């Protein structure tokens, strides 16, 4: 015989407890703890029998219920001799949860934007260039977090591998080369220092060497006001002292 089993899905132990309380039509302030515990455990058993995984949160509540049940059997009192109802341990969270459920229901009944009411859309008929220093940006933190997560995932999936190869050109060597060229000619064009370079990394190393030389002040760089005009490199050292200069480079 086949039975069609329809199980209600509960969102957590409190949700299930609340369902049992309503089903049994009992007072939340006077929960018949043994009945409810029995039914609660029976529900968990049923879930297991149906091969549904039972979340840890449900099991914690089960042990809480059993604990309360045992406490109810042995009435104990606190220091003031007043009896503390062990059921308070679940009554309060249940009440708070009921309260939240109720406002959540109220929320869903409001006029929700995108469901009940609709705003105007962004206007497309105006071509308004935003001011360069706009007062604010329209991005949420989540978008930022999400952007970062995408990058992490990309790098983890191996789609973006970093490869390091043996460095065949050293900045120091290239710096020496530039200096020796300048020693001969005093002045040269920017493009000329790359004339021997064959690969992109080599270009970069040469460029870094040049930057370093400019930084320490042994080479000066000039360019006419026009962006496309040639860049000139000029030696800014006594031609005799170049050997030591080359050695002094702290690269």
């Amino acid at each position: 015989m086949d039975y069609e089993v329809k199980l209600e899905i509960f969102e957590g132990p409190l949700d299930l407890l609340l369902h049992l309380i309503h089903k049994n039509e009992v007072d939340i302030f006077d929960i018949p703890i043994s009945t409810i515990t029995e039914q609660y455990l029976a529900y968990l058993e049923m879930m297991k029998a149906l091969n549904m995984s039972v979340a840890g949160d449900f099991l914690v509540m089960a042990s809480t219920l059993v604990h309360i049940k045992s406490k109810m059997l042995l009435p104990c009192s606190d220091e003031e001799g007043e009896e503390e109802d062990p059921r308070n341990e679940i009554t309060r969270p249940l009440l708070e949860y009921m309260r939240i459920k109720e406002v959540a229901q109220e929320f869903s009944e409001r006029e929700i934007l995108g469901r009940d009411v609709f705003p105007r859309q962004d206007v497309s008929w105006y071509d308004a260039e935003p001011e360069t220093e706009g007062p604010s940006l329209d991005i949420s933190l989540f978008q930022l977090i999400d952007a970062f997560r995408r990058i992490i995932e990309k790098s983890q999936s191996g789609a973006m591998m970093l490869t390091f190869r043996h460095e065949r050109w050293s900045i120091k060597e290239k710096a020496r080369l530039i200096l020796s060229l300048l020693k001969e000619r005093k002045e040269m064009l920017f493009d000329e220092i790359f004339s021997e370079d064959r690969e992109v990394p080599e270009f970069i190393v040469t460029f870094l060497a040049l930057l370093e030389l400019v930084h320490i002040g042994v080479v000066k760089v000039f360019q006419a006001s026009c962006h496309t005009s040639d860049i000139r490199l000029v030696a800014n050292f006594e031609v005799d002292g170049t050997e030591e200069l080359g050695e002094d480079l702290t690269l």
Partner: protein
Amino acid sequence: MVPIMEKPLELIIEALLFASSKPLSVQEIHRCLPDVPAPDIRAALTGLQTTYDAMERSFCLKEVAEGYQIRTRSAYAPYVLRMLRSSPSRLSRAALETLAIIAYKQPIIRQEIEQFRGVDAGGILRTLLEKDLIRIMGRKTIPGRPLIYGTTKKFLEVFDLKDLESLPKLKELKDFGSGDEAAVHLPEEDGQVERSKENETRSGPEEQGLPFPKDREGPTA
């Protein structure tokens, strides 16, 4: 009213509202019309509201998220949805409940949210962050330095709320009982919850107490 303007103030503001997809606050309108004092803008907005209601058109002017927005009336939702070819954006019950906890108890940390519902909140928090309904307000100065959550302006916008003060009032705990209130053993705790809620909404994120008495072992502990 204002000499430099060639058009009536109400109509200028109407044009701004018509061209904006976001609610406009009085300040934002004032920024576009610096010569018009804020009270005049407010009066014009009220005027527009009355006009639209009297015109009985398909849209009306609503005060939401500390601003004003022209919106279609809910009676037209089925047609608009068909035009947008979208099913209404929906939040699950779990998401709504989590959102409600955050709305009422903010600033609040994840652990406290989970105590309320008795279940893990990670996935739901993500959904709510993604929908820009909640935001990260900072970190609590307790071990682990957990993130503090609160609601966004978008939350007010979506749920048709003027501000956080206009959230519907929470029911008293005792009102949930079925009669026999003498059996309630929670008098002192009751007051504490109300008070701590007050603190939470008004004070800074660092110094609010847990919504539950600390000595209680919650179901998720």
